[in-house]
């Protein structure tokens, strides 16, 4: 996992999974479909990504396809940079 992935992982662990063993969250852990991120958490994540990486994420990108695991989120961020 590169630096972007690490940053995202750290944010998700801190905000939505406090107390979780960091090894339990991998690149491919399903986040939305498994109930780790609800709709509000997804908004907070998008807000974090926009601020941290200086990108803009469109409304059509805030979905399962783009945000369901850390690998997809990294792809989304990289496609904007």
């Amino acid at each position, binding site marked *: 996992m590169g630096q972007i992935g690490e940053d995202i992982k750290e944010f998700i662990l801190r905000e939505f999974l406090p107390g979780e063993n960091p090894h339990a969250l991998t690149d491919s852990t399903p986040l939305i479909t498994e109930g780790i991120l609800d709709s509000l958490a997804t908004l907070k994540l998008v*807000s974090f990504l926009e601020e941290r990486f200086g990108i803009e994420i469109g409304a059509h990108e805030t979905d399962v396809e783009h945000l369901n695991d850390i690998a997809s989120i990294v792809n989304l961020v990289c496609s904007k940079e």
Partner: protein
Amino acid sequence: MLHYLLDNSARSLPEHVAVVEPGRATIDYSDLAILSDCVRDRLVHLGVHPGDRVGIYLRKSIDAVAAIFGALKAGAAYVPVDPFAPPARNAYVLKDCSVRTVVIERCFAERLQIEINQLGGTIQNPLLLDDVGGGRFLREALTREQEKNPAPVTQTTLSSPDDLAYILYTSGSTGKPKGVMLSHNNAMSFVNWCSEAFEPNQHDRFSSHAPFHFDLSILDIYVSIKHGATLVLIGEELGKEPLHLASLISQEQISIWYSTPSILSLLAQYGKLEQYRYPCLRIIHFAGEVFPLKHLRALKALLPGRRYFNLYGPTETNVCTYFELPAVIPDEQSKPFPIGKSCSHVETKVVNEDGQLVPEGEKGELCVTGAGVTQGYWNSPERTARSYLEDASGRRWYRTGDIVAVDNDGNYIIVGRRDRMVKKRGYRIELGEIETALYRHPAVKEVAAIALADEENGVRIKAFLSCREDTHPSIIELKSFCSQNLPRYMVPDFFAIREALPKTSTDKIDYQTLKEIA
């Protein structure tokens, strides 16, 4: 009666748009009335009698609205379930109130049948839709059935005011949802109060943000239809995305908005409201929970000059008190706004633990009586008895469980709860239901759920657990387990795993200590 509202508007405004699916389809009053007549005929042919229950297992759509009116016209009470909730929970609901049949999308039907069989039940002759949208799929399903097995034209049932119109299931403390039975009179008294209080007209365009299994939908659907106005359906997925909502409110020219404060808070924070104009928007209603003042101020700054109403009432009474916000929120205001005074169709009073009126100025439990108050819970006379007080004149008062005080202007202010029910994003949650779900996990030995509240985030749920083995499930696994067994809004936000949970001297879980360490 509720279903007469549609036929009345269809006679006076046949070509006026009744319901809109934004960007997809519209239906006018005449077509909606005709489509619901066809549903009525089919349901009657399937064996639905006045007094029966009909399940509605559809995503929000024109099809779902027509199915609801069709059920009412057949004299049945409709039972809407959340198509996104765990199928096992929905199966429990539909079996509990022994629905005669279900109007359901094909994609949900197989799983429901499996779950209901496991409970020892079955769904007779479901009316199967291939999809939903525009009323087209309902029409297709009816045509298909009609070709196979023609249903004769029937008459719309002349319902009585005390007949049940719908049953809404809410979280139950024993771990199973409970069905609140609402009559036509309960709903009509509220709808008529809305007419008086908000003076809507046929040019209004109502938002339908809340799902149909949530009682906010009663105002949306029936007040809009009564006045020949237009109902703008906001689908389950779109409804949670504030980024889309701002443009939708603007483009669809919504004039009367109604939702929980949560979505309005999100709109104020993330919705980019300043990008659009909303010349039609005149009333913003919110209900279901406290609106954090910080976000309410932000919303009023972004959408000034509108009337804002805080509506209050549990499902058992629907809205029973209301408060109109002042045009400007004073700078010195630091507490949330009150829930206000009684609506004209009900009466309220405040009682102590023994059910006696409290002296003026003291706090106590808010009780409600009048036309809006439900007869009780489906198939649960004991629970019903516990929830009502009877006064000397024989009138039944519903005990809301909310502890209130009265401010200097005579408005009620909520100060707490009598029991373990909490409100999160407008949804009622019995903490006991979350605990019951977690106890089903094989590794879990003890569990206690508590609610945390703060101004920034509203209510959040934390679950404390102890496990049978040294190796305990990960938090990810627990969240995933909960999301398979509970509606999303009930999944705890936080988990903490301990060797053992703290106990009181009588060896019960010590919730007080848990709240302190949370």
